[in-house]
């Protein structure tokens, strides 16, 4: 695992040299949250949740949507190594293929968790999200979502040849799955067919978890199903990704 640790530290160092991406990914949802909060608040009021101000879903919803963009960076990092011609150097090092994958996944799981925590904290403070809830339960949702999102992106890396193809998956995850899962607007506002297919998306389960914590005062037991399903998503995509992954496959950084 020392090689995975070396690659992890390298990824964090490179990110520190150019943090613009994370700064933008942090700023944009903070702009969108107040725009959506009122709409979400009206929807929740229509459900009979009179005390809700909309931040309960608008804030975590944006952390989920933009969380997919952030998760996509793990794939971008792998493709970038091909573009920098350093991938083969990593392959001829003492790092096994699993260590290679771990070296890229670990830092981005950590970053992904921290990203959501900070975004929820800042967004919550700015837009009136109450933290008098089970923080542990929400952390469980956050961590399991990070695992699932990074696993999906590694599966994308293993499956696609160009960074553009990977980027399409990132966009699909963020916008389509975000929309279907109720991260952009409350699920109740979606057409019937969309509500019916929503449970096949990981975003549905992460939003169900946040909803249980922030709207229904739920604890660990109340988010257990969401956490379990998200972990299952993660295991499924990580397993298939690891099986499909071929370190000797040529990847195109610019295509």
């Amino acid at each position, binding site marked *: 695992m020392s090689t995975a640790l*070396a690659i992890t530290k390298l990824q964090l160092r490179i990110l520190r040299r150019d943090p613009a991406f994370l700064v933008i990914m942090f700023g944009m949802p903070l702009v969108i949250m107040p725009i959506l909060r009122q709409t979400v608040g009206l929807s929740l009021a229509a459900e009979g949740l009179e005390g809700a101000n909309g931040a309960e879903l608008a804030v975590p919803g944006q952390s989920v949507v933009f969380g997919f963009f952030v998760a996509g960076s793990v794939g971008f990092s792998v493709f970038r190594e091909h573009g920098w*011609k350093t991938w*083969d150097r990593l392959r001829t*090092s*003492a790092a096994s293929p699993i260590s290679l994958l771990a070296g890229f996944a670990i830092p981005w799981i950590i970053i992904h968790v921290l990203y959501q925590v900070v975004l929820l904290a800042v967004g919550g403070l700015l837009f009136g999200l109450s933290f008098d809830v089970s923080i542990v339960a929400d952390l469980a949702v956050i961590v399991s979502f990070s695992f699932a999102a990074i696993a999906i992106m590694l599966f994308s890396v293993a499956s696609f040849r160009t960074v553009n193809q990977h980027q399409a998956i990132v966009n699909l995850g963020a916008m389509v799955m975000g929309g279907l899962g109720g991260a952009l607007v409350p699920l109740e506002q979606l057409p019937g067919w969309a509500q019916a297919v929503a449970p096949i998306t990981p975003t549905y389960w992460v939003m169900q978890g946040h909803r249980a914590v922030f709207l229904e005062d739920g604890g660990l037991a109340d988010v257990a199903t969401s956490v379990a399903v998200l972990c299952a998503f993660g295991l499924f995509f990580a397993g298939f990704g690891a099986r499909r992954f071929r370190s000797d496959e040529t990847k195109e950084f610019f295509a």
Partner: protein
Amino acid sequence: MLGITPVRELGQARTRWRARSGTVRLDRVLVAKDIEKAYGDVVALRGTDLSVAAGEVVALLGRNGAGKSTLLSIIAGLRPPDAGSVEIHGIDALADPVAASQHLGIAPQDTGVYRVLTVRENLEFFGELAGLKATRSARAEAVAEQLGLTDLLDRKASALSGGEVRRLHTGCALVHAPELLMLDEPTVGADVATRNQLIEAVRALAADGAAVIYTTHYLPEVTQLGADIVIIDDGRILARGTQAELEADHAISGLAVEVTADFDRARLDTFRPVDLGGGRLRLDGAATMAGVLEAAGDQTSSILSVERLQADLESVFLAVTGRQLDDETEVVA
């Protein structure tokens, strides 16, 4: 600055590595046997053998497509062979590539460094990746000194010149003092000073006990390195020896004749002509100036030039492969 010479530091690092891994120095650092590789219908390697001993610099000479890069990439574990075996430092590299890679350093032809990081950070990262811990900072400084990068240690790679990047690229391969070092055209695009620095570094590494495989387009480098030369063509190793041995065994004496397009080449068949391209013919050792003119008869005006061939690597290559060693030819040492 270290209080010891870079060469000595390399030796100490390698000794430490051996002590940590519990292995002993082996005479044959690399033993590749019966390597076969095909890409579809194209056969790249046909039962190729290559061995390199500790302290030896081996030059593998071959045209583009001769199988050099495929052989190197198989040894480095970048692609699997269809058949054959590769042992690095006594380890079956095909069965346990991770263990074997700890004894291997490779600088591929394409420069691959992290341009957002400094020279020091690049060297330390590749040292850490190879398992160096407490010594990696000292090793980075020693390698930087050896390659003339000491003053640039804290400069980002993106701010380096092409030659400096090339030196850093090479340094990343040798920072962990590997027993087997493979350098694929390390001097491409480098100025004379950089070239000499890299060659001196390679000689120092070999003197310290490293086995080195080195490729270059520049034949004089092979002479400068004092390398054992291996000639590969069409996926087969055709000859191996020191430059003096190969020249003694294979160098061609004879004439090179340049003729016009309308010249009747059959007139020179007595001298077993070989087409060198560009209107040039190589004639065998029996050819003399007078003999050529006599054979040309009324076409002497179509003979543009005649020169005596020197016994050199180029003529050795020609004799062994029957092909011209041109600008496209690469040398892998």
